[in-house]
């Protein structure tokens, strides 16, 4: 147990905010982290069941609700098990101690004589006639949580560490399950005519033409430059929204140029510059090698377009959202609409996987704005597919230039990573703006360039700092003050482009030194957990029998520790390159300390591999003229079933080490392993993602 309380407890000290014993012999567990497809709710339920000693089926979990669940900020950055899980463990252990302490007094026995079997209290193994539901009372919930109770040792775990199935999947394979499926009384559907860009002014809208195209009665809601089409029939408002694009005239639309879609564009932009690590300029002595790597803008590209519901009744606004943070969203919405925070309730409902800050919050604000204009109805806004691709915040393009001064053996003695990128996080609580707010009569000031600090893993600098034993290392970060389109967090932030650069460069330096890339890494790596992973993956993928360079068939390997403090992962990729790249096999190993649900963890590790491979090989947001032009799945292709390789994941059993967030840990290593395998297959290096057919052809004629 750590000596400091997790933030989740510090911000929510009242026991009844987290746990309640319910009359039907269940336990209500309320948490602030939300399900975004990562299986967090079953993992948190397992932790509570373990510490309370109740069956897992008795845990009735409520998540993401500003009326009834604690404030745990956003569900992001692989923090849910590290922070919320640790909190639920401490809180559950403390409640158990409190209740059993009172029972010991009642029975005039030592607490050590008492035990709990599925919520029933035993004394020396015999029934006491008491259980949580009959014996616990208000006094158990009165005092603030201290976090001082000793949780179980991992060796005693019966539920934690087991592959307990998720409950939410049952609805998802049989019928209604998502925010999109919620039906409420007085439901009206809404679609938005989006302001093309901040500052654009709606000069005219031919409402008659839109109504005619809709074919049936609609309401047109206009507030400043915000326009919505609302009606009882979803098909009709959808038609209106599609037709409106041709019947609206805007002035002051910002014009985008194709060169702005490339990471290199950032090199000449005004930036906020920071220097982290060893002071002084990069060394100029000895052999100095430098290469530059990049990833373009990429989209979250959730499978479902964003959706939000809102209703304003009797002076209270209720909102449903697939947001990652219900409290931050409540605060944003109440501020924008001039309501008090207590006049707004935000409840989480499941959406498609978001992998970061996408359009979820914005769709909720859309619905809320309409609800204030049309009270006493439930307003359901669903974005169109083109709207999702065109207006969700995207992940910034990112360029990393690495520079190493080498010793006589070809090993770095001085290492510099120089990063150019826009903001990797611009949540509304983090300097960003909400989309529809910019269309309202009093728009907010422009978004401020921002990035998480180093203590939180950094943004553009995430994993920029190598964990190899180099004598001197530094990161120089050029955070662009402006980006051509809105940017915000996407799985791993800067970790993928930075690990791509770092681990590709290591292969290039190994080749230069005439060393095997794995042996080269291990010669400069003292962290035993990292070494073990690399050796594990190298063994399994047959690294020693890796073929020669340039045969068209490649094997590459890379590793990282996410944020340099969360889970470790190592990935090897085998692929073939003809005109395109075909992934054949992937071997991965991860060390996340104590794993709560190994099946859920494996699912996340596999998903991270496929997601990263898709990004590395295929994905780029394109822009021109009025905005983003990659507006559908043809123009923003992602990995298909026929392109997914065989994947074999091993989780290192390490239950005595604290849990490390692992949802993002395979992301960077997968990208770099692909980069290294492509270089092995071709004999030439491709440093700019995505590794498309055009890039391969260009590299081969270089």
């Amino acid at each position, binding site marked *: 147990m750590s000596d400091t309380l997790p933030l989740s407890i510090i911000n929510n000290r009242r026991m009844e905010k987290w746990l309640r014993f319910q009359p039907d012999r269940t336990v209500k567990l309320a948490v602030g982290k939300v399900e975004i497809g990562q299986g967090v709710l079953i993992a948190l339920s397992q932790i509570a069941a373990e510490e309370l000693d109740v069956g897992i089926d008795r845990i009735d979990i409520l998540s993401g609700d500003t009326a009834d669940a604690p404030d745990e900020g956003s569900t992001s950055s692989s923090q849910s098990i590290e922070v919320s899980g640790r909190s639920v463990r401490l809180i559950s252990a403390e409640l158990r101690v409190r209740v059993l302490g009172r029972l010991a007094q009642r029975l005039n026995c030592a607490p050590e004589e008492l035990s709990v079997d599925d919520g029933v209290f035993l004394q020396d193994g015999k029934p006491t006639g008491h259980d949580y539901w009959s014996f616990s009372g208000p006094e158990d919930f009165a005092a603030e949580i201290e976090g001082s109770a000793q949780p179980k040792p991992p060796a005693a775990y019966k539920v934690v560490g087991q592959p307990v199935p998720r409950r939410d999947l049952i609805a998802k394979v049989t019928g209604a399950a998502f925010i*999109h499926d919620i039906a409420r009384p007085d439901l009206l559907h809404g679609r938005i005519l989006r302001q093309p860009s901040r500052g654009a002014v709606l000069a005219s809208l031919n409402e008659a033409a839109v109504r005619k195209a809709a074919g049936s009665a609609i309401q047109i809601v206009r507030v400043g430059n915000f326009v919505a089409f609302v009606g009882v029939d979803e098909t009709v408002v959808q038609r209106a929204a599609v037709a409106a694009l041709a019947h609206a005239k805007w002035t002051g639309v910002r014009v985008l140029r194709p060169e702005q879609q490339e990471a290199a564009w950032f090199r000449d932009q005004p930036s906020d510059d920071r220097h982290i690590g060893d002071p002084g300029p990069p060394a100029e002595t000895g052999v100095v090698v430098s290469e530059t790597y990049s990833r373009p803008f990429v989209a979250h590209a959730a499978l479902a377009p964003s959706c939000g519901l809102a209703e304003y009744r009797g002076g209270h606004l209720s909102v449903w959202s697939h947001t990652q943070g219900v409290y931050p969203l409540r605060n944003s919405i109440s501020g924008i609409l001039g309501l008090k925070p207590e006049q707004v309730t935000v409840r989480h409902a499941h959406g498609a996987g978001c992998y970061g800050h996408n359009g979820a919050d914005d769709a909720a604000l859309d619905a809320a704005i309409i609800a204030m204009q049309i009270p006493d109805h439930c307003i359901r806004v669903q974005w169109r597919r083109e709207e999702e691709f065109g207006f969700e915040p995207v992940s910034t393009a990112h360029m990393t230039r690495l520079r190493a001064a080498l010793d006589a053996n070809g090993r770095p003695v001085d290492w510099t990573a120089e990063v150019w990128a826009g903001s990797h996080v611009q949540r509304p609580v983090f300097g960003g703006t909400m989309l529809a707010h910019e269309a309202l009569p009093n728009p907010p000031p422009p978004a401020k360039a921002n990035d998480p600090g180093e203590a939180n893993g950094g943004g553009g600098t995430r994993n920029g700092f190598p964990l190899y034993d180099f004598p001197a290392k530094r990161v120089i970060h050029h955070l662009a003050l402006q980006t051509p389109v809105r940017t915000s967090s996407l799985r791993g932030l800067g970790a993928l482009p930075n690990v791509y650069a770092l681990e590709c460069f290591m292969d290039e330096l190994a080749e230069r030194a005439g060393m095997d890339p794995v042996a080269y890494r291990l010669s400069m790596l003292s962290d035993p957990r990292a070494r073990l992973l690399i050796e594990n993956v190298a063994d399994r993928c047959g690294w020693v029998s890796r073929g020669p360079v340039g045969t068209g068939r490649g094997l590459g390997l890379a590793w990282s520790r996410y944020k340099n403090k969360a889970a470790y992962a190592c990935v090897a990729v085998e692929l073939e390159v003809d005109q395109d790249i075909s992934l054949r096999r992937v071997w991965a190993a991860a060390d996340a300390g104590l794993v709560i649900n190994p099946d859920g963890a494996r699912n996340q590790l596999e*998903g991270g591999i496929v997601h990263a491979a898709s990004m590395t090989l295929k994905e780029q947001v394109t822009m021109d003229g009025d905005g983003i032009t990659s507006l559908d799945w043809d123009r923003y292709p992602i990995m298909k079933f026929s392109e997914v390789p065989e994947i074999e994941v091993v989780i290192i059993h390490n239950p005595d080490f604290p849990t490390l967030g692992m949802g993002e840990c395979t992301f960077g290593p997968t990208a770099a392993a692909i980069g290294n395998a492509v270089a092995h297959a071709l004999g030439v290096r491709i440093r700019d993602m995505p590794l498309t057919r055009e890039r391969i052809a260009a590299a081969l004629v270089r």
Partner: protein
Amino acid sequence: MSIDLTVNGRAVSVDGDATTPLLDVLRNQLDLKGSRYGCGLEQCGTCMVLIDGEAAYSCAREVGSVAGRRVTTIEGLGTPEIPHPLQRAFLEEQAGQCGYCLSGIIISAKALLDRNAKPSRADIVAALDRHLCRCGTHIRIIAAVQKAALMGAPT
């Protein structure tokens, strides 16, 4: 106007515009929310239903074109209490992350298993290649379809 069709074995009569997307009719008139909107462009597969036993996109399909035909949605396969073997296999394999793609994928898998009770891995991949899964759950999804095939022919 009124359009007659069979949905999940039940005769239904739908009032309204024959050009309305079948997906909108299923979701908003018949309250079958298991078929999902993803793109409206026949690119992602979240809206997949069976029309006379063949997997078909419903997002851009006019309801008038299915008059007199049999439509099956995910709700027509099984329920949480009595899941279809495919649904059971997906749960046993925990073949989902966010789960948004799953109902459409299970529909395509049903069409596959109905015509080929013992599909190869390549057959499964080919049958599912019209579907997108953004979470990267492909490996488990393929394993779940293989498992369902081993469970025996569903009806």
